[in-house]
């Protein structure tokens, strides 16, 4: 408060705490130096680019990285994009900026450069009227705007990862705008034999996946908007399918075609999900309840004992997050965390837990429950379910939604609790 007032007054430096001075002076306080023309603090000069399409402070250096560490690089030597993880350790709130949203392509590919005027999306198969929509057509139809996460099936944590970007960075959450798929399917008229649909992208491999019609009629949308602007090319410009809560690969990017069929179509992507046990197949389809502490997390450093709000993200493919618990003693005692803002269905939900660190070595963990009562398990619990001996780096079957521990050493360093 003092800083804001001082910025307007003639004697800005008087009677202020240093941290207030900095913020106050940024608004244009007088220079204490002899040259009256010299600005008191560094300024960012307006350029055409900055005025037209702004950018973050150069002090903010958070970037995406290739996933997994030591795996296939992105870009590769040909300029192809494979898997790129989002810097969750620096995330605030629940929306992932579009430029930091995780990216994955089926087998590593160039990002298609699609002219929206040429792009169409066709629905055909077991419908009364096949229809082809231009982007203009889609924008005429009633729209929805929803917050949804997308998570890649490869988002698995293990003891080799150093930070939360490496362990959990293949999930992101954005505000998506588009048309409900049910609106389009009603426009086409579904035949009674319609039980599955195949969604297909326009990229070089024409990635295609089978999904149940019940999902299409429930909450799928074809999205042209992302975080208040057009979907980015890496995320499917000009149109992508959102299949909220399903594994990332189902969210077909560069959507060009939807075929309504009467059976599971066993596309190549579907073949990639082949499992022998029905239980394992079920666990590799819809994302389970999952949470992770993003601060303090691996690679970060606590400057000393005292107060910290433990912050993290929780999400589930089963619906909204109902509750989150945090343990600061290695999982012996679990405490109810505070949920920030109203949890949305199939969206990242921010949680916080106030904590006074006593300076002793400990382990911090989080776990969540979603609106249909599914609980995020520890690895011990999963091993017990499958009746296999538990070890710290046990690979859970299906998508990995198990609890993630961060270890805090006496010197305040935070490391992977699975290591």
């Amino acid at each position, binding site marked *: 408060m003092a800083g804001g007032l001082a910025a307007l007054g003639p004697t800005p430096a008087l009677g202020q705490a240093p941290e207030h001075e900095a913020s106050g002076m940024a608004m244009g306080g007088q220079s204490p130096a002899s040259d009256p023309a010299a600005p008191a603090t560094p300024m960012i000069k307006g350029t055409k680019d900055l005025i037209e399409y702004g950018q973050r402070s150069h002090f903010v250096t958070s970037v995406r990285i290739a996933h997994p560490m030591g795996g296939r690089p992105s870009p590769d030597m040909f300029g192809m994009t494979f898997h790129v993880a989002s810097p969750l350790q620096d995330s605030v709130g629940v929306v992932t900026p579009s430029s930091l949203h995780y990216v994955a392509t089926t*087998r590593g590919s160039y990002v298609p450069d699609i002219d929206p005027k040429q792009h169409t999306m*066709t629905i*055909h198969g077991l419908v009364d*009227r*096949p*229809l*082809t*929509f231009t982007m203009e*057509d889609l924008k*005429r*139809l009633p729209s929805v705007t929803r917050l949804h996460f997308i998570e890649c099936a490869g988002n698995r944590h293990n003891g080799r990862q150093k930070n939360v970007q490496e362990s959990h960075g293949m999930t992101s959450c954005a505000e998506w705008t588009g048309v409900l798929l049910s609106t*389009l399917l*009603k*426009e*086409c*008229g579904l035949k009674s034999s319609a039980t599955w649909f*195949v969604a*297909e992208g326009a990229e*070089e*491999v*024409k990635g*295609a996946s089978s999904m*149940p019609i*019940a999902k299409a009629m*429930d909450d799928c949308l074809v999205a042209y908007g992302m975080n208040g602007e057009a979907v980015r090319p890496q995320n499917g410009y000009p149109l992508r399918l959102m299949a909220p809560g399903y594994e990332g690969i189902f969210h077909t990017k560069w959507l*060009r*075609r939807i*075929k309504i069929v009467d*059976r*599971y*179509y*066993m*596309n*190549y992507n579907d*073949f*990639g999900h*082949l*499992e*022998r*046990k*029905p*239980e*394992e*197949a*079920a*666990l590799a*389809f*819809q994302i*389970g309840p999952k949470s992770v502490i993003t601060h303090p997390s691996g690679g970060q450093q606590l400057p000393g004992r005292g107060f910290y709000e433990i912050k993290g993200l929780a999400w589930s*493919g*089963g*619906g909204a997050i109902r509750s989150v618990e945090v343990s600061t003693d290695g999982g012996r005692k679990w405490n109810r965390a505070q949920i920030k803002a109203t949890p949305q269905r199939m969206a990242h939900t921010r949680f916080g837990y106030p904590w006074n660190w006593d300076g002793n070595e400990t382990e911090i963990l989080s776990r969540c429950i979603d609106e*249909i*009562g*599914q*609980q995020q*398990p520890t690895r011990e619990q*999963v091993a017990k*379910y499958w009746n296999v001996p538990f070890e710290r780096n046990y690979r859970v079957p*299906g998508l990995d939604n198990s609890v993630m521990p961060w270890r805090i050493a006496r010197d305040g360093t935070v490391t992977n609790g699975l290591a």
Partner: protein
Amino acid sequence: MGSLRFAAIVLLLGSPALAQSPTYGVGRTPTPDEIRALDISIGPTGEELPPGRGTAKEGATLFQQKGCAGCHGKAGIGAIAPALQSNKGQDVPIWGRGRGASGWMILPLTAPFATTVWDFIHRGMPLGKEGSLTADEVYALTAYLLYVNKVIPEDQVLDKESLPKVKMPIGDDYARLPEWKHGTRRLQGYPY
């Protein structure tokens, strides 16, 4: 009362018909030719398969000519791209092979339907020249890959009729997805 009941009956009778007529009238009807050109999905019944034919012998030549061997290895194994041939004997059951290059993620060996092999070669190969293969070439390459995995004999001709009938070694031994409904749990009782 009578008119209310009448209205309810009209509503009941009328609603399926209403649901069938377009609400917005946005979008245009594609021609059958446009749909045919766009529809590259080959389902398990093979009903979308185009005319054409091919054998393993022709496929073996194409496998070298079209550059497949460059990424998948001379015999479809041991190179940078996914393995197309198992290095395990025929007596090893599909699910006993483990994951990865030697395992069950080998498309022409472990796919439940040969149509998936045809579909993916046609849709996604060769890298950088996707969609350039003719129907005959795709039949031939599919035959070759099924032959090297000992799924079909070398002289079998694959076409629209015979391809969907190929009996894949995995048979029926794979999991179906659970029926999905709004608010479905991943797995009842998991992990408790």
